[in-house]
């Protein structure tokens, strides 16, 4: 009776893992310096912040929502976190606390507008995109907040057992996110809402509250991502994180999540993040024109979405 489920999600995950291996193999031959342990760590470090943000975005997209504000929230939380650290009392801890609180606050606004006031997520989070960016410039006076106590750099720059801290943060966030989505009542309700909101509501799911929490948690994660970036840069930068929302959405969608909701996994998102990271890194090392790289990334996103559409049709036909 316990026949393992062969879902399209699984097929998509394994296809993407395979595609990543093929991609890495190609780069190993054409990109000098690609095939090394150091470079592998580089790739992971380059995608760490995106990966952290992608966990929250996966949950948002699973509910058939979207959060366009994460890039700006990264800047706002980085700046406010840095300002907290500048005050000197337990700088690293205060910075994290403030960044997560500020991120959560933006999530509360997004969640309240989207879940309870029924503003389309695209609109409410687009508004937050510009508001959070504006706030980041106002609170910082338009300058980078630097010259910080050395402990501020711990989250972004320390290396534990050869692995950079941001990569470990990403790993921890992904493990936690995967556990929440797969094993908790909250996670199961997220999938149910994305699959069929009305049926979930009629089965007793408090759909608004679940959606609210998804945006709140996504804001908190953006705070962690924002502080990780600021810590790595050694400063809170008000124009950091520009267009991160697009990179993050791309990673989630390439990872097999459906923008219509109900389908997607953290494992898929991990592979989507890594696939794009390897692509960017390999093209860089192969000395491909950065403008051409943008085109390559666009093509990958289109292929992923077309694949998603085809799998959806097959499933509804099957």
């Amino acid at each position, binding site marked *: *009776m316990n026949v393992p489920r062969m879902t399209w999600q699984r097929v998509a995950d394994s296809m993407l893992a395979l595609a990543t291996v093929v991609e890495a193999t190609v780069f190993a031959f054409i990109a000098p310096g690609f095939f090394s342990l150091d470079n592998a760590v580089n790739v992971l470090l380059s995608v760490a912040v995106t990966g952290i943000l992608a966990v929250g975005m996966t949950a948002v997209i699973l509910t058939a929502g979207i959060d366009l504000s994460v890039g700006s929230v990264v800047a706002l939380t980085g700046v406010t976190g840095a300002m907290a650290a500048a005050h000197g009392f337990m700088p690293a801890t205060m910075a994290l606390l403030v960044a997560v609180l500020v991120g959560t606050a933006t999530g509360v606004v997004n969640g309240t507008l989207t879940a309870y006031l029924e503003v389309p997520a695209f609109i409410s989070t687009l508004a937050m995109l510009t508001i959070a960016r504006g706030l980041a410039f106002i609170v910082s006076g338009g300058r980078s907040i630097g010259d910080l106590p050395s402990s501020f750099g711990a989250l972004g720059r320390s290396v534990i057992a050869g692995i950079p801290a941001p990569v470990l943060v990403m790993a921890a966030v992904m493990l936690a996110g995967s556990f929440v989505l797969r*094993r*908790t009542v909250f996670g199961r309700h997220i999938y149910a809402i994305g699959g*069929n909101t009305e*049926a979930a509501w*009629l*089965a*007793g799911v408090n759909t608004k509250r679940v959606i609210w929490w998804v945006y709140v948690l996504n804001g908190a994660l953006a705070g962690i991502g924002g502080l990780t970036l600021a810590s790595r840069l050694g400063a809170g930068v008000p124009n950091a994180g520009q267009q991160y929302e697009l990179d993050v959405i791309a990673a989630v969608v390439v990872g097999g999540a459906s923008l219509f909701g109900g389908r997607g996994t953290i494992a898929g998102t991990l592979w989507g993040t890594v696939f794009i990271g390897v692509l960017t890194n390999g093209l860089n090392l192969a000395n491909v024109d950065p403008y051409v790289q943008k085109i390559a990334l666009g093509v990958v996103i289109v292929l992923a979405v077309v694949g998603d559409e085809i799998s959806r049709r097959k499933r509804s036909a099957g």
Partner: protein
Amino acid sequence: MDLSADALVKRYPGVLALDGVSFAASGGEVHAVAGENGAGKSTLMKVLSGAVRPDAGTLAVDGRSVRFESPHAAHAVGVRMIHQELSLVPELSVAENVFLGAEPARRGVVDRARQHAAARAVLDRLGQARLDPAARVADLPLAARQMTEIAKAVAADARVLIMDEPTAILAQEETDALFRVIAQLRDEGVAVIYISHRLEEIFRIASRITVLRDGRVVESASLAGMSRTDVVKLMVGRELAAGYPRPAAAPGAEVLRLERVDSGPVRGASLALRRGEIVGLVGLVGAGRTELAQAIFGAAPLTGGRMFLDGAPFTPRTPREAIAAGVGLLPEDRKRQGLVLMGTIRENVSLPSLGAMAPRGVVDRARERAGVARWVEALAVRPPMLDRAAQQLSGGNQQKVVLARWMLRHSRVLLFDEPTRGIDVGAKAEIYALMRRLADDGAAILMISSDLPEALGMADRLVAMRDGRVVGELTRDEATQERVAALILGESAAA
């Protein structure tokens, strides 16, 4: 123009919607089509208007064989349907809608003056002098929108007009105005095919009637010399199918009581449900049955009246609260409202029970599997694979999955909204047996059914609704098809 159909067959998964239907409508007559829900009326209209292609059978216009590949092909020969949900673009004007797709234009630029004048002429011809061609459709009342839709058909020179319950949305004066237009079109030689549940209207406007039952024509004749009772008998006069389980021995204590409940279209509805009893809630589409069930389930707000569960006041504001109190709902549209189709059997069954099997929010998967497996087995869900996606199941098995959900939750009050719609005969019998077993185990069941024989066969007691009100209650012994039909149709003469 004459439109005829010969030996139409249309099969949907598990249902034979049309089983050799022949039909003919002639120019200059209003031909009524009647029958219970599910008798095949709407499928027949879809075939006649080109929206659905039949599996077998032929269509002919003025004796020449035609094939409609699409509604567009039907329009081309002058056959048009006026839909219940009107197919207008609300943001456009009346004139723009009337000539949508056939705009008078010069080199691709719409000639607005000519369009306005032409629309004015059509509306005048229909006696609609007060309807402004420049008005935005979204701003118009429903009756005016319907008239716009008719004007659209007339402007396209429709010779066969199919109208599906056109008066359902109209007030009395509006109905009178519509009937004048229909009579005028008839006198101009248009064939009008008129679907309605309202016998009074059929007798007023139509000269012929075709009655469908179970996908077959039971009668097609002139209305002259027929009484309303004759028509009701034709519509519902089916022998009770075998296979209904025996009725309840003796119902127990009262579980749920409704006192003068208002909610949406429901007005002052009172009823009671007892342990071990199946109450059938009968009425026509739009009588307020589904809305009443939604009010009990907390899915629609109560605007008046009171409800009691086990004697205590009961006012659920959300389904969540109703479920917590022990109420379960099998919605009418199980694909849209019942199931998360991409989810598995397990996920769908356990959804409302997750809280109880999740210490500190983490689902105990062993407990979940065991609980779900027990009911999947007891209900004989096929295939009994917990990780099979719900969308891969047949209609009957999907229904069992929703049922298993409430059994796992130990719900004591069950609201079944059209529990056997669209499922095959064998699965129906299984669902009937399960319902009776649930009642025997102490559940109180409210069953909404538009299938009168089913309601009569299953229910220990029948409650009839019409126009949002409870209009009568019959015990199992009192209930006959004719008496129930008279109640739900509001036909005192037919009793």
